[in-house]
């Protein structure tokens, strides 16, 4: 790949802690290689800030290969930046050109309070899973794995939904801060499998109740979530979720 270097202007959200009101700070960054990842550009900037005796920018990240769901930057008005089906950590600087200005903010949602700078609290997602995002099977209870064949198409679809990385970009993109895409991915993953059947009704009801309790907004079908989801979770899942919810409400017996 051909590569080049560039100079950029970064406007980054700085917020000392959850009670600070926060503000944008502007940084000029120089000699950034197009081969760097977006987070490596932040590494370079942070090294410089430390050398200058300033506080580096806090941001979440771990795997840096698009799978852990930890990175979470809102880049020029779009969660995870400009590339399709991509996480912040997979974004590379060849997406930009010399002289660009890039605005970087944390996820914005009432249910994801800012902890510091670009770091937010997404534990609400864990609590939604606690409400029912599982199959109740204790270790040791399982039957032979091949005793229940599952149609390949169904298994593949369940997998596509299980691929959600719990990053929260869907919430950050949504003007209502709705968590429906995330919840629908988990409900679909488990509802599509025979193993998930026994708890199908209680699961959807309890997960939605928890989602509401956490203060996530309702879904008005704008599709912003699907457009930014790094794992291409389909918005048709939300229809499935609504369907499951209605069915469960009609017939729930426990």
């Amino acid at each position: 790949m051909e590569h080049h270097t560039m100079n950029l202007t970064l406007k980054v959200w700085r917020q000392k802690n959850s009670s600070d009101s926060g503000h944008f700070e502007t940084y000029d960054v120089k000699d950034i290689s197009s081969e760097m990842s977006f987070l490596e550009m932040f590494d370079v900037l942070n090294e410089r800030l430390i050398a200058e005796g300033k506080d580096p920018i806090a941001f979440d990240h771990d795997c840096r290969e698009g799978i852990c769901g930890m990175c979470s930057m809102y880049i020029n008005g779009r969660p995870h930046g400009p590339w399709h089906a991509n996480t912040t950590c997979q974004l590379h600087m060849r997406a930009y050109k010399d002289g660009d200005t890039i605005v970087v903010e944390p996820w914005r949602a009432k249910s994801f309070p800012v902890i510091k700078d670009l770091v937010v609290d997404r534990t609400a997602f864990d609590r939604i899973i606690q409400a029912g995002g599982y199959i109740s099977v204790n270790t040791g209870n399982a039957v032979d794995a091949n005793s229940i064949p599952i149609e390949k198409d169904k298994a593949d679809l369940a997998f596509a939904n299980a691929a959600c990385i719990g990053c929260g970009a869907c919430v950050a993109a949504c003007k209502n801060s709705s968590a429906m895409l995330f919840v629908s991915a988990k409900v679909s993953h488990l509802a599509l499998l025979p193993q998930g059947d026994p708890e199908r009704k209680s699961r959807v009801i309890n997960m939605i109740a928890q989602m509401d309790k956490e203060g996530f907004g309702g879904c008005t079908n704008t599709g912003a979530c699907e457009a930014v989801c790094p794992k291409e979770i389909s918005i048709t899942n939300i229809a499935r979720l609504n369907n499951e919810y209605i069915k469960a409400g009609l017939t729930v017996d426990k």
Partner: protein
Amino acid sequence: MLNAKIPGGPLDQKWTYYKGHCNLVNPANKRKLEVIIIGTGLAGASAAASLGELGYKVKAFCFQDSPRRAHSIAAQGGINAAKNYQNDGDSVFRLFYDTIKGGDYRAREGNVHRLAEVSANIIDQCVAQGVPFAREYGGLLSNRSFGGTQVQRTFYAAGQTGQQLLIGAYQALERQVALGNVKMYSRHEMLDIVMIDGKARGIIARNLVTGELERHFGHAVLLCSGGYGNVFYLSTNAMGSNVTAAWKAHKKGAYFGNPCFTQIHPTCIPVSGDHQSKLTLMSESLRNDGRIWVPKQKGDTRKPNEIPEEERDYYLERRYPAFGNLVPRDVASRAAKERCDAGYGVGSSRQAVYLDYAKAIERYGLGECSKLGIEDPTPEQVREHGVNVVKEKYGNLFDMYEKITGENPYEVPMRIYPAVHYTMGGLWVDYELMTNVPGLYALGEANFSDHGANRLGASALMQGLADGYFVIPYTIGNYLSNDIRTAAIPTSHQAFVDTEKAVQDRIDRLMNIKGAKTVESFHKRLGKIMWDKCGMARNAAGLQEAIEEIRQLKKEFWSNLRIPGGIKEMNPELDKANRVADFIELGELMCIDALQRNESCGGHFREESQTEEGEAKRDDNNFQYVAAWELKGEGNWELHREDLVFEVAKPSQRSYK
């Protein structure tokens, strides 16, 4: 003498015998027993869920914002199990044997056999939890092969197997959280073990959001804190993976087993520049279908597609006809290094080889066309169908490659080079997964136990889940059954006070250095020393130099480090400093261990000990042991040996030719 407590009797009866005779804890007593688990990767999450289900009171810790983000999430290729669903001759014995041989006869027979025995249960458990493994059209589970084996026993979920397994374990864990059996502490980092009367009885953890230190009591402490590949700075591990939990245990008396045994994975995306923060693996499963080659001509600068077939050197197929591209990782990595060092490397750095999918696309394309009844398909048709098959099998890996390099691997061969990937070494544990410190256990990659000097692909996921789901639930009872009368010890106990103070003092010391250099710069320098002198090839002179250089680096670190910010707040630089300080000490021990082991075995290649053909040469007479190191004082370790006895898998020169 180290006692591994391996049960007597024939190899294939040991685990059954153990389970039938170990002490049990009754349900009422379990509720009174508290267990601390550090880490929520496959090992930690499966242990926390299973122990919670049994009724123990569990506290689980991780440094990420959610237990679902543990580094296990990144595992790509698959998980082994001796199911023999493919009817291709697999069995518990064969999995055991492949693992022992793959590990170059430096692992314990008893442990490895147990691992092979429980492997099948893991797949059952995961499927029951809803883990969507790949399936065939008939609805049954699909398998693929991995390096170092000749059967298809690897279960997978596209290139996201670790993610799917971890989500399964995470969901089981969250279910126990909901039921109140497990209390989860995320964004917490364990910084020391609390010892009372010679037993591990708790931990000191730092809340990474507030910076406050916390004391937690446990009747037992399980370290499931992962591997230490990041001692090399650049590795395929997640950025946060670190040795701190294991190192603190080591400082409290736990022996460190075979620290120099590291795995360099042959197929990773090569380094692109100084800014590089980590390396990305291209799953070993790609070697199933991809072919590895370099030009036959030195320094060939033509584009790969311009190099005709007869001018390509498929060096793995040439050197190892029996296993070809599927030789074990250590062998494949060294072979790539050999070609690049000899001047045949490709790409701008010349430190890369090609992994080529053109043939596979053609082969699959022809197969599909034939299945669809397309007669005399055009090359375009073949290609189109072939690309689709490859996409389904490896699509996410190909996408990942393109995002990083900007090149389309369906069009041009991928460039790959070996990178640090996994650490076979770790805390020494006995058969029950207990370290030599009573009440302190190590599971998953954090222990040294099952992979000897080289881990086979798809075996780490198997081991992590075996330890957590199927081993620790038995073995911990054997220990805790003696503790049913021990009431929870209040954290006002002097040992907690003193340990917390020691942790606080160290943090203060780090913050007060107020030097000029960043943590990152020290970590990079450490990584370079380790990679150059304790990496893919090692020799006595280099290791001795490395030890000196690391000691020097340590001095500089403690006198010239700069950490911005404060203590009682979120401070990632401080977190990193804590970890890098431990990596530096570990680096020294790794070099000492590598120097001591004057033989080549598995991933440990001592240049002084090789065959005429450049293969690793073991020295069973002198080194058929586990090196377990006891820390005696700063920079001072004592070696304890656990001799390895092979009653069933008789050591032979490993050959994949």
